[in-house]
C-alpha cells in the first residue's frame, strides 16, 4: 500500500461537501417553487385591504376563513345560482365520464396490442405512437365542425365521448405494462377453455391495477385542468367547468376581489392535490415509466 494520498478519506470529505451543497441548492430552489403557492394560500385568508400592500404581508392580521364561503357564493345574486358549485358539478360529471371511458377503452385496446397477434398490429402501433406528434390545433377546426354537425356544441359530450375511443399515450403506457405479465398465464388459461375476454377481465386486468390507476390519474388531471376544450365547446356560463369559470371570475368587469379569487383557486387545486397525495407512489411510478425504457 502506498501512502502518497488517502483516497478513501478525501473521497468521504468530497461526498460530505457534495451533500451540504446539494441541500443548500435544494432548499433554496424548493422555496422558489413553493413561494407562489404559499402566497396563494396566505392571500386566500386575508382581508381585502391586506392583499395589495407594500411590503407584502405574509401572515394576515386576522385569518378570514369566511373568504371561502364568500368565494363560493360570489356572483350568485346576479346569476341566480351558485356559480362555483355549478362549475364543480360540471367538472365532476365530465371528469368521471372521461376517466371511466379512458380506463375501459385503453385497457382493452392495449391488451390487443400487447397480447394478441394480428396482421398489421405492429405497424399500426408504430403509427399510433407517431400520432403523439400531431399538435391539437391542427385537428381543432374539423373536430369542432364534426361536433357542431352532431349538435354537441354547448353540451359536455365533446369533452368526454372521445375518451371512450382510447388515446395513443395511454395505450402505450398500458401496453408496456401488459407485456411484463408472462404469456404462460394466458396460455394456461386458454388450455382451461378461457376466452380471450375472460383472460382479460379475470386475469390480466386485476394484475394491472397499478397501470390502470396511472391511466385514470392522467385522465383525471387532464380533464380537471383542461382549458382549451371547455373554451371551445361550452357556451352558457352555467355549463362552464372550474378552469373556465375561474378565468371568467378573473376577467369579469374590473375583476373579482383578489382574496376571493385566490380562495377559489385554492378550491380548484385542492382535489388534484388530495388525489396526488393519496396516490403519490402510483403517480410518480407512472410518470417515470412514461419516459420510455
Amino acid at each position: 500500500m502506498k501512502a502518497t494520498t488517502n483516497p478513501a478519506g478525501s473521497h468521504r470529505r468530497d461526498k460530505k461537501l457534495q451533500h451540504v451543497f446539494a441541500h443548500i441548492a435544494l432548499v433554496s430552489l424548493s422555496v422558489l417553487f413553493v413561494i407562489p403557492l404559499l402566497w396563494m394560500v396566505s392571500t386566500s385568508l386575508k382581508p381585502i385591504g391586506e392583499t395589495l400592500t407594500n411590503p407584502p404581508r405574509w401572515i394576515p392580521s386576522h385569518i378570514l376563513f369566511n373568504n371561502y364561503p364568500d368565494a363560493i357564493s360570489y356572483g350568485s345574486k346576479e346569476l341566480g345560482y351558485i356559480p362555483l358549485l355549478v362549475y364543480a358539478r360540471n367538472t365532476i360529471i365530465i371528469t368521471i365520464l372521461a376517466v371511466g371511458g379512458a380506463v375501459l377503452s385503453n385497457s382493452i385496446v392495449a391488451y390487443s396490442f400487447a397480447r394478441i397477434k394480428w396482421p398489421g398490429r405492429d405497424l399500426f402501433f408504430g403509427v399510433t405512437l407517431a400520432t403523439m406528434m400531431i399538435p391539437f390545433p391542427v385537428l381543432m377546426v374539423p373536430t369542432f365542425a364534426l361536433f357542431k354537425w352532431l349538435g354537441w356544441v354547448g353540451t359536455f359530450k365533446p369533452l368526454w365521448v372521445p375518451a371512450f375511443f382510447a388515446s395513443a399515450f395511454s395505450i402505450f403506457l398500458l401496453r408496456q405494462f401488459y407485456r411484463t405479465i408472462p404469456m404462460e398465464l394466458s396460455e394456461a388459461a386458454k388450455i382451461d377453455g378461457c376466452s380471450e375476454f375472460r383472460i382479460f377481465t379475470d386475469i390480466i386486468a386485476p394484475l394491472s391495477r397499478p397501470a390502470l390507476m396511472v391511466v385514470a390519474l392522467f385522465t383525471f388531471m387532464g380533464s380537471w385542468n383542461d382549458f382549451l376544450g371547455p373554451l371551445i365547446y361550452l357556451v352558457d356560463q352555467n355549463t362552464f367547468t372550474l378552469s373556465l369559470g375561474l378565468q371568467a371570475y378573473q376577467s369579469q368587469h374590473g375583476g373579482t376581489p383578489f382574496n376571493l379569487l385566490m380562495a377559489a383557486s385554492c378550491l380548484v387545486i385542492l382535489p388534484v392535490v388530495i388525489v396526488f397525495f393519496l396516490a403519490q407512489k402510483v403517480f410518480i411510478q407512472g410518470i417515470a415509466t412514461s419516459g420510455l425504457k
Partner: protein
Amino acid sequence: MIRRDARVGVLFALPWIFGFLIFLAYPLIASLLTSFTSFSVLRPPTFIGLQNYNELFHDQVFYQSLTNTLLYVLGAVPLTAIVAIGLALLLNTKVKGMSIYRTLFFLPTLVPMVALGTLFLWVFNGDYGLFKQAFLKVGVTPPGWLTDPTWSKWTLILISMWGCGQAMVIYLAGLQDVPVSLYEAAELDGAKSWAKTMHVTLPMISPVILFNVVMSIIGSLQIFAVPYVMFPGGAPARSAYFYTSYLYDNAFQYQRMGYASAMGWVLFLITLALTLIALKLSEKHVHYESN
C-alpha cells in the same frame, strides 16, 4: 386458430381504430382540405386554392405570433430541461428528505394552467407583486414583467420553469437505472463528481433527455392557456400573442376556419421539422444501450 386470434385482436382494438379514424385521421385530412377553402361553419366551404397560404405568408400578425412562439420554445425548452435535469441530479445524490423535495418540486405541475396564470399575474404585478418587492429589496429596479413588450415573453419562459416537475420525475427514474458499476469504474480511473456527471451520467440518460426535449418542444409550440389568462389579446403590443392564440382567434373569433386550418397544417409541419432536427442533432450524442 390464428384467424380467430386476428378477429379477436381487431375486435379488442376497435375503440382505438374508430378513435384513430374519427378523431385523428379524419380531422387531419379534413383540415388539409379545409385549408384550401373559405369556410365559416355557418356557410358551406368554397374552394379558393392556395389563397389562405398565400395570405398567411404576407400576414404580419402570423409572423409575429410565429416568432413569439419560436422564441418561447427556444427559451422554455432549454430552461425546463436544465432545471429538471439539475433537480434530478441533486435529488439523485441520495440526500435526506428526497421524497419531500420531490413532492415540493412536483406540486406546481398539479395546478391548472388558469389558476397558475391568475396566480402569476399577481406575483409579477408591477405595483404590488412579490417579485417586484424582492427585487427592490436587493436594490434592483425590476422590469415591467407584464407591461414591457421585451419582457412579457421572458415572464412566460420563467413561468414554464414551474412546470418542470413531470420531466424531473422521468429523469430521476432514468438516473436510478444507471448501473453503479459504471460509477465505480470511473472512480477507479480517478474521475471526480463533475467528470462522472459529464461522462457517465449524462450519456447514460441521453435517450431520456431526447424523449423529454421532443415532448417539451411539441408542448411548448402549442402554448395557449397561460398567456390567454395573463395577457388578454397578447398585450403588450402583441408581444405575448402566440401561434395557437392566433389560430384560435381566426377559427372562433373571426370565423375564418379555412385560414385557421392552413395555420394548423403549417404548425404541424413546423412540429415535424423541429422534431426531426432534434432527432438528427442528437444522433451523435444519444447513447443507446445495446441489448
